[in-house]
């Protein structure tokens, strides 16, 4: 079974080698694809030196367009499974097999790594947890599924979802929105407890002062995507 690990990275030259080493240690059987979101540092060169494939976006698209490029690649190359794995070192490769197991058993279409189901690890700040809880409730109200860590960027999906995401994927802050889009089309979503690390270098794509803006925008995006016509099938 072919599995593609999609690694979105924007200016992660300092983190990316560690991420690849982690993957090679805990999940050597997968293919890796770094999607370089128009980094201004040495990310692409570092990745290629390590012998890993690198998609280089000529224009910065943000995390949504970046991850979707990875899904497009997975779709083109007929991968059976795809795993989203952040290029900043937050995610731990040792959990990838746990994420893939429900998909391989045919029990789920998408597995989300949740740091709130696992004890320990980096649990994010109290404010962020509050925001995540709010979004999680909102998604539950809108489509009836329960996902505790809706902003988690660590996810595994099967062939059907690769097809769907390569054609329809939310931009800007895509995790909660794409989860909702998948759930509304009847995708079976499970959560797997994972531990996460705090990022080592650089900054998160969501800056501290932007939390309120983030919540407002994601809420609006969720409501809008709930109201819009359903395009595409899973």
């Amino acid at each position, binding site marked *: 079974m072919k599995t593609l690990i999609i690694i979105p990275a924007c200016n992660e030259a300092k983190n990316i080698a560690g991420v690849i080493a982690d993957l090679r240690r805990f999940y050597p059987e997968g293919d890796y694809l770094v*999607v370089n979101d128009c980094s201004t540092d040495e990310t692409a060169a570092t990745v290629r030196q390590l012998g890993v*494939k*690198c*998609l*280089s*976006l*000529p*224009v910065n*698209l943000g995390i949504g*367009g970046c991850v*979707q*490029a990875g899904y*497009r*690649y997975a779709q*083109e190359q007929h991968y059976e499974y795809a795993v989203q794995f952040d290029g900043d070192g937050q995610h731990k490769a040792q959990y990838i097999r746990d994420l893939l197991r429900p998909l391989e058993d045919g029990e789920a279409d998408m597995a989300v790594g949740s740091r709130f189901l696992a004890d320990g690890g980096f649990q994010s700040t109290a404010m962020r947890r509050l925001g995540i809880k709010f979004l999680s409730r909102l998604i539950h109200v809108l489509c009836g599924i329960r996902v505790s860590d809706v902003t988690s960027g660590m996810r595994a999906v099967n062939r059907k979802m690769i097809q769907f995401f390569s054609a329809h994927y939310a*931009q800007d802050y895509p995790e909660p929105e794409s989860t909702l889009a998948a759930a509304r089309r009847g995708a079976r979503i499970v959560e797997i407890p994972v531990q996460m690390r705090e990022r080592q270098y650089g900054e998160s794509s969501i800056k501290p002062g932007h939390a309120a803006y983030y919540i407002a925008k994601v809420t609006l995006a969720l409501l809008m995507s709930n109201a819009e016509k359903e395009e595409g099938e899973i």
Partner: protein
Amino acid sequence: MNRALQLFLLLAITLYFFALVHFSRRKRVEPKYMLLWIISGVMMIALTLFPALLNRVSRFLGIYDPTNALFAIVLFCVIIILMALTAILSHHNADIIRLVQENALLEQRIRELENKAETDEAMKSAEKGERNAV
């Protein structure tokens, strides 16, 4: 509406249409977007030439001064056009995202082909070298 304002508006609208013709001749604006502007221009002409129309609208809406009704209508037109522009912009944004992704995928494919061609060539020349040695 007094004569002075009416004349001024007519002059302004004439200029407006000149600008439209100018843009369309230079192909700066696509016909489908031009339509929006032409429709609102025609509306403005109608209201300026037939103030009675404006009076009726303002009476119906309870606006005391017909000129204010004119401004309200113009504002309405502008808002419609702006919303249409936002929609067009969003559509273009989606197109750009798609193109950027496609570009990256193609670049990666070329890179792989180049690598393959290089290794093929290296193998060929190595074979040749062996044969020559034999």
